[in-house]
């Protein structure tokens, strides 16, 4: 009997992802899912009641609207767009010769990995949507409605992800025929996601949608937007928020839209499988070798900044391996591009702190992207440092130096972009802000280096990197809410508190990370 190959591969992908759970690995979705559900229906509403006064105050304040929007936007980036660009990005892993030599069709490989990753992503999506739902429960949201909202998030997410996976496969089979091409493919994938974020968010926030409606005639573009399931879903969520309650409260339209989303997902899945088989070739890609360009001004400057000598050489070597991977550059462009997008969407609010809040949420990604490289060359690469006298210290120092050289200019540029939205800016304020952002990004570099050494990520798969980056951003969000509840938000003390907490946490994790680096085997 022929086994379903994609199921075999899906199981394999699942086992790889959950390997750290040992014999409990099949229970992972429940182990994580159940506490999340409990938290959503019990803990969060209860805690929200506890803080009701502060919450109400916060929701009523004029600043809240911007903040909530920005927070939702960040969540949206986290749970919707990264996996898409990841799937675009992480194509080469499938080209294991072991797969090539087995009797497989391309669709088995693509579908298998997608299905195998589903439980993993579901946990994230359920967590994110639960947060959403938890905030709506105090409004009187019914249980069926709550589950439908979560379902909408899941369906939207997996439809988008699957479309991304198929498109990625097609892009790759077109351009991935050289080593350079592979790099270019990875680089494109990140930046391709950028306009997508813009468009999808425009739909979510309704700006474009409303603008199109306001322009009178429902043109083809408005019609096209209507075809996207995320707008159906957004409509359902909004109408639930407006008419919360039990099943009897629902009109026929909402279940219909929900069903349409399911049909859409199944249809996309089916069409994608057909397409994938035709567009995607499993053949391993030939590559041409690239010449290393002679050391130019830039690396000479890097060497000089690091103080020359063998430390300078180390920093330059690490930097070359980083800089020659185009996807690293595109990741940086991606984050700065997001800063620009947010500034465009939310700019002109006259609010001095809006930009800073946004940077607060985006800097962890930037730091994580840069520093996350430290372990992806594998354990054997770390052993090169382990073998060298005081190699571990050298590694840590060289990485901090290299990351600092990358992140400082990016932080300055991002701050500058976000400052363009502040009306009547004075220079002193700008200088203070730039300095603050530099200090914060440096402490985030230390923090994420510590994290990546504590929980090393030995593969290039960007999805694996997200764990540590999520810890970083949750930490920063925690700091942010701490300043809110301490009523320090917007005060100098509040900003300093965030910086202080991050630095202390950074120092601690780095110490733990180095200890792990020394004892890892």
């Amino acid at each position, binding site marked *: 009997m022929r086994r379903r190959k994609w199921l075999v591969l899906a199981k394999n992908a699942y086992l790889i992802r959950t390997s750290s759970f040992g014999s409990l690995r099949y229970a992972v979705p429940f182990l994580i899912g159940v506490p999340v559900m409990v938290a959503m229906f019990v803990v969060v509403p209860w805690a929200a009641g506890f803080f009701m006064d502060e919450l109400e105050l916060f929701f009523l304040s004029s600043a809240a609207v911007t903040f909530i929007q920005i927070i939702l936007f960040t969540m949206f980036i986290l749970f919707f767009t990264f996996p898409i660009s990841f799937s675009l990005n992480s194509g080469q892993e499938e080209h294991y010769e072991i797969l090539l030599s087995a009797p497989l069709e391309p669709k088995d490989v693509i579908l298998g990995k997608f299905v195998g990753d589903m439980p993993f992503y579901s946990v994230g999506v359920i967590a994110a949507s639960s947060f959403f739902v938890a905030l709506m429960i105090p409004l009187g949201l019914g249980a069926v409605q709550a589950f439908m909202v979560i379902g909408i998030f899941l369906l939207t997410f997996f439809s988008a992800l699957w479309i991304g996976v198929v498109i990625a496969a097609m892009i790759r089979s077109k351009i991935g025929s050289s*080593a350079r091409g592979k790099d270019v493919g990875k680089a494109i994938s990140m930046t391709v996601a950028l306009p997508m974020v813009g468009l999808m968010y425009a739909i979510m926030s309704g700006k474009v949608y409303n603008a199109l409606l306001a322009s009178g005639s429902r043109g083809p573009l408005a019609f096209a937007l209507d075809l996207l399931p995320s707008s159906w879903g957004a409509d359902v969520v909004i109408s639930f928020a407006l008419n919360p309650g039990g099943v009897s409260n629902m009109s026929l339209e909402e279940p219909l839209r929900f069903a349409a989303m399911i049909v859409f997902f199944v249809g996309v899945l089916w069409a994608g499988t057909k397409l994938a088989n035709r567009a995607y070739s499993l053949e391993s890609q030939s*590559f*041409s*070798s*690239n*010449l*290393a360009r*002679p050391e130019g001004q830039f690396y000479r400057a890097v060497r000089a900044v690091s103080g020359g*000598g*063998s*430390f300078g*050489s*180390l920093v330059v*070597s690490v930097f*070359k*391996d980083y800089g*020659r*991977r185009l996807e690293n550059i595109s990741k940086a462009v991606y984050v700065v591009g997001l800063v620009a997008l947010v500034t465009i969407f939310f700019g002109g609010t006259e609010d001095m702190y809006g930009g800073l809040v946004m940077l607060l949420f985006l800097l962890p990604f930037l730091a994580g992207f840069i520093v996350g490289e430290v372990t992806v*060359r*594998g*354990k*054997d*690469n*770390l*052993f*090169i*440092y*382990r*073998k*060298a*006298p*005081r*190699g571990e210290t*050298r590694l840590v120092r060289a990485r901090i130096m290299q990351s600092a050289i990358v992140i400082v200019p990016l932080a300055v540029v991002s701050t500058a972009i976000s400052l363009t939205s502040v009306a009547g800016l004075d220079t002193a304020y700008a200088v203070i802000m730039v300095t603050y952002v530099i200090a914060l990004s440096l402490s985030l570099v230390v923090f994420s280096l510590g994290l990546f050494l504590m929980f090393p990520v030995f593969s290039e798969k960007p999805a694996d990197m997200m764990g540590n980056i999520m810890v970083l951003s949750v930490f920063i969000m925690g700091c942010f809410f701490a300043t809110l509840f301490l009523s320090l938000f917007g005060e100098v003390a509040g900003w300093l508190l965030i910086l202080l907490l991050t630095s202390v946490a950074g120092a601690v994790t780095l110490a733990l990370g180095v200890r792990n680096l020394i*004892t890892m*085997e």
Partner: protein
Amino acid sequence: MSKVMISTKQLSKSYGKSGRVIALDRLNLDVYEGETFGLLGPNGAGKTTTVRLLNCIVKPTGGSATVGGYDLIEDSIEIKRITGLLAESPGLYEKLSAREFLEFMGALYDVPSDMLSDRADKLLRLFGLHSRRNHLLEGYSRGMKQKVLIAAALIHDPPLLFFDEPTSTLDPSAALMVKDMMKGLAENAGKTIVVCSHILPIVEELCDRIGIINRGKLVAIGTLDELLERTGKDTLEKAYIDITGAVQQKELLSWRELRSAKT
């Protein structure tokens, strides 16, 4: 008798929380200065573990050792300086060129930069990689990478060298070259060499003494002649199989039996 270079006493290593995998079990071994020592043993016997222990990459879970007179735990930095290692599965930076990788390794061992660039060029020329020195390592074949790694192990010119399966990916002439080079390093430059290999003729030719490890235990040690005498065999291969055991002929095809019974 010449000076002892490596001396281990009851050196042990187990992996896992409760010591489930005993990779090396109470090893007592002396390697003398200027000697070439061969380490043999089946897959998973503990050869790589021994090499990693002696290079201070992993920490022992029992026993003690000195390398070059330095204590394995107290003076690990000094030991790292005087040893060079060709690792079994090395992780190199694929986006560096061969030349840049050697520069990187030299920097890790504090080789002065004027000496470094000269030495890197000479080593690359020796391995026939000079014309491709500026190509990124991602485009190198496995054997070419191996050559770069051997060059990298030599870049700080250490007195004690460890080669973990140096020739397993090399073409016949490159393997011959590496073998001759190890010979030259031992005879002319007075290096002490520890080599792990499954390629018995190389071990036979190069090594002054041979140790055989099986399941973490040193089960035999001596010169080639001593090993042959002890087992009463006439080749190293036969002696090796006599000491470590072999798969019985009749077992070789037993995995097919169930299936052929059905059809």
